[in-house]
């Protein structure tokens, strides 16, 4: 193998590929990155048997070939290289990386043991703009469960039916986030593992291209012109969640997003060990109050006039949940719908029907 290419682009792809390796594998090939030449391009491939990454960049190839390089070492080497251009040269099981000012000789591994990346038949596939996919993933991933006792809750559920919009939803059973997208698909129901979602966000966030999604029962493939990312799907059934979303509210609050966000943030400073903050809605006077108190550090209280209709209500919430919910609202005006102190509050942008967030309160006194 003999080629030269842009170092920065190579580094970018290797850093993404390195994240999809297995950090302490029984099989050493799983912590490695495969470099393989194609027509005027270089492929960078890695897998940990959960996910597989394949990226490509333009290269002037003098001699075809492939080599399996230890992932972490390759990444560190490229990070430290000062120059723009690098030449890659493989000889006798070693990879030589040469730039204008430096030269590295890297001991490589046996190609034999590197797994083949499974192929998916292109039967089920659709396209989605990177911006709507990334937005939907970012908005829902926060509500996934962080422990794995229920894998279906540690995943983002992506589903679509007939003419209804493709929807992403996640819940850890304390809160729920749902984002509708602007595309449709006749029928699909996929559970994307939380880790996969994180990687997809990282890989495609700034890509600027549409993303092609191909899936079967067990796997899903995200693809654009340069990168393919394959992942297993979580097996299982996402719970029937529609019944949880309230259709009517006893109390409705419209407020400026930054104002409430700052108040919640400040209340968080004085929240108790349980991260508890209180939201008190005064329906008669039209005042929204946010309070917290901590026996050791002190108390906080904020009260301000805003548009409120319906009954007064006072409920306690985990302030992390509130904060994360409010931060994901893109609108400047926030709507909050309450149904008493023991029922979930619905939070969404005042004129945004696409995204909603539900948070269950804490047991009060």
């Amino acid at each position, binding site marked *: 193998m003999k080629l030269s290419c842009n170092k920065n682009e190579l580094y970018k792809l290797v850093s993404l590929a390195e994240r999809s390796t297995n950090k302490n594998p*029984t099989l050493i090939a799983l912590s490695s990155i495969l470099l393989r030449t194609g027509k005027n391009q270089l492929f960078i491939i890695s897998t940990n048997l959960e996910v597989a990454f394949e990226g490509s960049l333009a290269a002037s190839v003098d001699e075809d070939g492939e080599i399996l390089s230890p992932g972490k070492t390759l990444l560190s080497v490229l990070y430290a290289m000062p120059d723009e251009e690098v030449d890659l040269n493989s000889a006798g099981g070693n990879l030589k990386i040469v730039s204008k000012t430096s030269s590295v000789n890297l001991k490589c591994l046996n190609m034999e043991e590197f797994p083949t990346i499974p192929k998916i038949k292109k039967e089920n596939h659709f396209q989605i703009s990177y911006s709507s996919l990334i937005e939907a993933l970012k908005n829902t991933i926060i509500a996934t469960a962080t422990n794995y006792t229920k894998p279906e809750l540690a995943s983002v559920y992506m589903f679509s039916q007939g003419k209804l919009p493709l929807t992403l939803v996640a819940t850890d*059973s304390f809160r729920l986030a749902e984002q509708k997208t602007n595309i449709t698909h006749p029928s699909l129901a996929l559970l994307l593992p939380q880790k996969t979602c994180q990687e997809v966000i990282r890989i495609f966030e700034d890509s600027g291209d549409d993303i092609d999604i191909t899936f079967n029962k067990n796997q899903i493939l995200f693809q654009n012109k340069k990168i393919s990312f394959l992942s297993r799907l979580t097996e299982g059934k996402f719970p029937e969640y529609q019944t949880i979303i309230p259709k009517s509210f006893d109390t409705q609050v419209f407020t400026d997003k930054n104002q409430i966000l700052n108040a919640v943030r400040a209340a968080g400073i004085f929240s108790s060990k349980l991260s508890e903050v209180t939201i008190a809605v005064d329906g008669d006077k039209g005042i929204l109050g946010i309070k917290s108190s901590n026996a050791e550090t002190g108390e906080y209280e904020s009260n301000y006039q805003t548009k409120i209709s319906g009954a007064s209500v006072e409920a306690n919430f985990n302030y992390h949940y509130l904060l994360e919910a409010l931060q994901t609202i893109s609108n400047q005006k926030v709507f909050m719908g309450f149904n008493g102190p023991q029922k979930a509050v619905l939070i969404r942008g005042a004129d945004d029907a696409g995204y909603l967030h539900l948070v269950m309160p804490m*047991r009060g006194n």
Partner: protein
Amino acid sequence: MTNEELWQTALNELELAVSKANFITWFQNTSVADHQGGMVVLNVPNAFAKEWLEYKYHKFILKALRNLSPDVRNVEYVISSEITPLLQKRKRERSILPQENQLEFKELLVDRETNLNPRYTFDSFIVGPFNELAHAASIAVSKNLGQAYNPLFLYGGVGLGKTHLLQAVGNEIKKTSPRFKVLYTTSERFTSDLVNFMQSNEAAAFKEKYRSYDLLIIDDIQFIAGKVKTQEELFHVFNHLYEASKQIIFSSDKPPHAINDLEERLKSRFEGGMVADIGQPEYESRLAILKSKSQGKDAYLNQEILEYIASNVQKNVRELEGALNAVVAKSKLSGKTLSVPEIKEILDKNTQPKRIVTANHIIKCVAEFYDVNERTLFEKTRKKEIVKPRQVAMYLLREDYSGSYPYIGQRFGGRDHTTAIHAFDKISKELKKNSQLVEEMKRIRELYDYSSSS
């Protein structure tokens, strides 16, 4: 040789043929899914393993299997969900631990197929003299489905643990015999299900559905009273399941014979198995329940507090739990253990007010219940059908209104106070031996509880 043995022996052979790292990576978490007519189907954990085993080790695997069982012609690989991926064992670094006090979406906990909430188990059920019969019967049923007591009929007041027991049987069965089809439903859901099926002209599908269960649990069966079509369908479902020795469990707030507007044939069927009641917990049970519920909240509680709550909240377990939560929440807020007077204040706010009734109201309810004219109670008649209601009314005036005997005598047409004493003693004695009367008394009291609260 069983499939497991076959594959285990083959694995032992394969282990020698490939390197250890390769063996662990590719062969761990594999198993035989099927072995029929020379075709072996292997479960593999992921698509990578499928590709790799097919492409790289197929010959080895086939050879190893053929050595052990010469009829093997081919091997196929399927991806199986039953094997947990290795990465799942990893711990996540980011975690806001869910707190004891954080409420959950209750809907998510419920199993979609069985409607069971996994929280309700026998382990978390506290047994005392008030519920031990019901508990023992439920255990017996769960150990011997369809054989021990069929149907099992549990009854008792609100918040005493009927639903808990019912669901515990279901969960136990799900655990011990996962293949059994279990359904927990309420009579209200049963009715609406029937209506839905009938609207879409699929009455047959309804029958089909309910007849397929090995264990059918219907909660709050008293609500089918007066619903003729539901009763008829339930009757047929019941007969079908009963004949097939499938277990049926019902719960209600009163015994079968006391449910009004229920067809005789259903009543007699409900009583045909085992009828067990759950009474009100006595002091020791209440204390035991509080102790078990207060685990993990010990910081703010002590024996004295628990004893105080147990002796003051008497009616049902749900209220008991509510009172405990209220006390704990208040303690957390003020950051200290509360004193008994403070707790008294909370309990007064939180628990149901003591029954407040007027003498007129009691008399009206008694008259209504026995279907006699209120005025006839005051007349000087010794007709049997009047004497009994009159004595019951006097008894209740004494018990629930704390009226003095002379006052009671006076109320009932200027009778002597000894008449009132006699009535009270007679009914008190009668209550000890006549369960019919106990039930009547309970329902009269319900009558004035309901009408006074509404």
